[in-house]
């Protein structure tokens, strides 16, 4: 099977929140097996991009399109996007009081399987799978018996996101500032989970403010997003350059482009 070079195409995407334009014409193609990083300062719109791809309500697409596996996503409900293989690891994972992690994950995996013509997992099959993935992210076994994310530390919540990534095994993983608030050990575990997930048929979009996570997960492409526009794209060296020179450096280069 040949590699799909455009798993997802973001075409001149314009997005507003309550009449404020956040994304001002984004173009981005992610092919199968590729790891892309979107870097940008606070408020640049990088989280918006990941969330709009996943179908989060509250955003208005005012122009352009998002095409995933050849079809537009704009009118597609978030659960259908998820079942089609799009996964968003949240910047702020939500606590679900009273909803058991086990039950939630089982509901999720069964929904995804059903959509793809597979039978629901038996309790035993699911328990085995869950145990395998839990070990991968080094999560405390007691946590899966508890309510989803309730009373979890910041690091545990992020590990739970990666556990879900590993279980649902999507085609495209969107990591929304997954590195924020993580200590070095948690960052290593989370990155390990993503690296295991990575593969010739898996694509990753990492949204991050800092270069730090890219020491662990090497991107094929780095894009710099400033004020709703991608102002520069390059390979992994761009992230290092950015780390060294700061976002003012790319802001400056926008000015050059405009002036030239």
């Amino acid at each position, binding site marked *: 099977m040949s590699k799909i070079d455009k798993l997802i195409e973001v075409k001149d995407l314009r997005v507003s929140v309550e009449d404020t334009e956040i994304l001002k014409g984004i173009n981005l193609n992610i092919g199968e097996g590729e790891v892309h990083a979107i870097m940008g300062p606070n408020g640049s719109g990088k989280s918006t991009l990941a969330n709009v791809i996943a179908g989060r309500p509250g955003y208005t697409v005012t122009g352009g399109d998002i095409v995933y596996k050849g079809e537009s996503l704009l009118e597609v409900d978030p659960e259908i996007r998820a079942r089609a293989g799009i996964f968003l690891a949240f910047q702020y994972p939500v606590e679900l009081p009273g909803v058991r992690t086990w039950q939630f994950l089982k509901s999720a995996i069964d*929904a995804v399987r059903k959509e793809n013509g597979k039978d629901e997992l038996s309790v035993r099959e699911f328990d085995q799978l869950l145990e395998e993935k839990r070990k991968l992210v080094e999560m405390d076994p007691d946590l899966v018996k508890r309510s989803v994310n309730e009373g979890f530390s910041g690091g545990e919540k992020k590990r739970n996101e990666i556990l*879900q990534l590993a279980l649902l095994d999507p085609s495209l993983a969107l990591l929304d500032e997954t590195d924020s608030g993580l200590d070095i050990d948690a960052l290593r575990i989370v990155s390990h989970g993503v690296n295991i997930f990575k593969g010739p048929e898996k694509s990753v979009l990492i949204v991050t403010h800092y270069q730090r996570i890219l020491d662990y997960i090497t991107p094929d492409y780095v894009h710099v997003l400033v004020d709703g526009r991608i102002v520069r794209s390059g390979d992994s060296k761009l992230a290092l350059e950015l780390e060294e020179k700061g976002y003012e450096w790319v802001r400056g280069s926008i000015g050059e482009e405009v002036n030239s």
Partner: protein
Amino acid sequence: MQDTSTIGDKYEEDYELLSADLPDWTSDFRNEAMLAFKQIGLPIHRKGNEKWKYTNARPIAEPQYSLAKFEEIGLDTIKNVAPWNDSWVNVVFVNGLCQGIFTSDTASNIQVFNIASDELPPNIAKLVGGIVDYSDDGFAAWNSAFMSDGSVINVPDGDNSGTVINMIFFNQGLARTVNHPRVLVNSGKKSNINVIENYVGGGDNHTLTNSVSEIYVGESATVNHYRLMSETDHTYDVGYGRVKIDTDGKFNSRAFFRGCGIGRYDLNVLVDGENASCDLQGLYFTSGNQHMDNFINIDHSKPHCQSNLFYKGILDGNSRAVFGGTVLVRKEAQKTDSIQSDKNLILSPKAEVDSKPALFIYADDVKCAHGATAGNIDADTVFYMRSRGVDLETASRLIIYGFAGEVIDKVEIEELRSYLEKAFLTSLPNHRFEF
């Protein structure tokens, strides 16, 4: 407009008739209560009445009720509507009157008496009414005046068998009848007991269940108390619970209200010995035009005590719920540790909750917190679940069940927990949150 002071007069004749059959020791107690009932009447005016500010008791108070009569009911009928285990001590009441005690447990040392009988030992009889203050509560006075049936449970010192006493108050729903169940639990030192009070039944006619329960938690004793209420839209249910906890005692209360026309549970816990604690948790679900009022007071009078008050409500239709939770920490009650919260999930734009947690602290070295929430589910919660492939219906169901499950899961008696799971999960609506 009806004058409150004439309400008691309507029941004078019933009172005289009832008195003829009751043991002598109850006469003074009941006469005094009848006098008070006639003076106080019932709270038909809300204005200036803080205790009944958010609940209109007029529909309950105004009708003239006749005393409900006993009718024998097949146990199968009871077992269909209430949790049951043959090894529990099951005490069945029909229309407020005792049908019998049913149990396979012959080894238990726990004594169960009929409350208004001659066989009640004097030292226990003198506890009746000991922690009930009906001077400002017409319903409690009414119950006390008409105390003719109910259970006294006496747990000997050191009996930690963890026996389950399952009291079922089945209401046949006979039109315009009132019944006045009465319960007294006396737990000895270092004892451990589970007590279920289950108010169930009703029909298409207006009925009133007006109950009073008194619970003494002895030194280092544990009382796990379960109060269940599941009646019809035509029933009124007024419950009055008084609890007194001695040194090192523990009172754990789990209350589950699945609706009636107008329901009120007035629970007052006196934390009256050092290192005593209470953990009061509740779940109420209202729908249609139902109304449920939880009026809870915790009174800390001794140092080094804990209290936890944790109630949750699910409201649908045009229903209304009231939560009044007050924690009083007296000057002597240093080192008190108290938390209270009331959370509500509102499924319908026409449903409404008045949640009023309050703290009165007169000691200076305490740890207290309170909070209340009411609302729909936030969009982030639902999006999080949908982003994992879970559809809106399933997400809504998981959220509502999860919300209820937080209280149900903590029920330690397995048969009771699975009964509650089934009972609540089947009655909760197939709601779909919209975003």
